[in-house]
């Protein structure tokens, strides 16, 4: 039982409506998992449960690195280890790009200003926006903002990175630059769970693809298997709809 993320019987409801119907999932350290499926299938909710941005049923269990994801002090420890990149970037608009990346290490890890800044500059360089360090988020393009958001998440040196449709809010010509940064991250040892509609990216980068529909995991396996040889009819019809226009 050395999976880095353990999800057992994950259930979640909004009132009467059940979004997740008891999902079981294990994700190994360093694994890159892409979650695909139609909208409303519960895939975003699934990854938002991993750092408990969404509360889930008491009978359900999620553990990251063996630490149970439950409210209280332990949750802060989990969140410090789990970075997240959002569809809508959610950068802090009143801070420069550099400060956005420096904030969490300083407040949560108690890094000195000097260390935090040095590390932030390295990360901004890595995502290719070191020249924009002193600008405010509003002066950056969507693709640049999302790359800052990735750098901000990396600043906490997370063991797990969650991506919630990171390219869905971007203009088409900016999708590539964000996916390129994510490709470089894959294989660096960080565990990545990515909710995406970019099937080409999933095929190329994922170790495992998970297809969800109606709050259930319908099918999971290596990309070649899911994309070329899906076993389930629902997977086939979904892929047919998104891939063949």
């Amino acid at each position, binding site marked *: 039982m050395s999976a880095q993320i353990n999800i057992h019987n994950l259930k979640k409801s909004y009132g009467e409506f059940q979004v997740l119907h008891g999902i079981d999932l294990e994700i190994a350290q360093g694994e890159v998992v892409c979650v695909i499926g139609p909208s409303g299938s519960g895939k975003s909710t699934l990854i938002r449960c991993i750092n408990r941005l969404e509360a889930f049923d008491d009978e359900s269990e999620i553990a990251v690195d063996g630490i149970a994801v439950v409210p209280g002090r332990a949750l802060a420890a989990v*969140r410090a280890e789990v*970075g997240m990149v959002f569809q809508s970037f*959610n950068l802090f608009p009143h801070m420069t790009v550099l400060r956005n990346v420096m904030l969490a290490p300083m407040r949560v890890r108690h890094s000195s200003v000097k260390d935090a800044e040095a590390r932030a500059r390295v990360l901004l360089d890595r995502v290719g926006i070191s020249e924009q360090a002193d600008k405010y988020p509003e002066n950056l393009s969507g693709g640049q903002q999302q790359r800052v958001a990735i750098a*901000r998440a990396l600043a906490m040196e997370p063991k797990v990175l969650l991506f919630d449709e990171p390219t869905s809010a971007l203009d088409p010509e900016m999708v590539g630059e964000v996916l390129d940064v994510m490709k470089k991250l894959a294989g660096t040892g960080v565990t990545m769970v990515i909710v995406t509609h970019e099937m080409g990216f999933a095929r190329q980068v994922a170790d495992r693809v998970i297809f969800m529909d109606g709050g259930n995991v319908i099918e999971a396996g290596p990309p070649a298997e899911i994309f070329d040889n899906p076993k389930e009819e629902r997977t086939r019809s979904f892929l047919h709809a998104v891939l063949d226009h």
Partner: protein
Amino acid sequence: MDLFSTFFNMPVLLNSLPQLLSGLLVTVQIGITSIICGLIGGLFLAITRLYAPTIIQVLVRGYIDIFRSIPLLVLLIVVYYALPFVGIRLSPFLSAVTALTLVSAAYTAEIFRAGIEAIPHGQFEASAALGLSNRHTMVDVILPQAIRIVIPPLTNNCINVMKDTALASVVAMPDLLKQATQAQALSANPTPLIGAALIYLILLWPMVYVVARLEKRYSRGR
């Protein structure tokens, strides 16, 4: 007696000016003390109302509603004339500051709450995902953004507090209005009252102008 010697009598005005200016000082002292205490109290109430356990939230909401409903003059008279019956005897200055602060804190709390609630939910989520504590989320992320939104309505509230200091004259506080009415009685001429009205105008008009500028600036958005 023509109009000028009645309402704009220069010798009377100059004679009463020192008295009016000492009243102005008292007015400004009451106003600034109440504004500062109201801001601190209001921020505390707003955060309590949003994030405290439910029972405390209900109590805070009750406080805010009560003190936004009660007329300030009534509250001031209760504080100054009624509380001594239960052994609480406040000076005129403290009575005025207490009444103004209690009411200002209630209004300020609502302003701060609206400001905090106007911050997109994604900002809270991004902070939580980074592992920031609630305190750091507020201090580093939410409040700096909320302040921009609440500055115009807060300045407006400050103007109201400044104006309401005039009510302190009914509890024998030697503020600007009280000094003016006394000077009027002494000189048997209403010019000191006109002088006091002009001083209030000079004090508050710039603030009104500033609010209008701020509202225009912030309504344009970032």
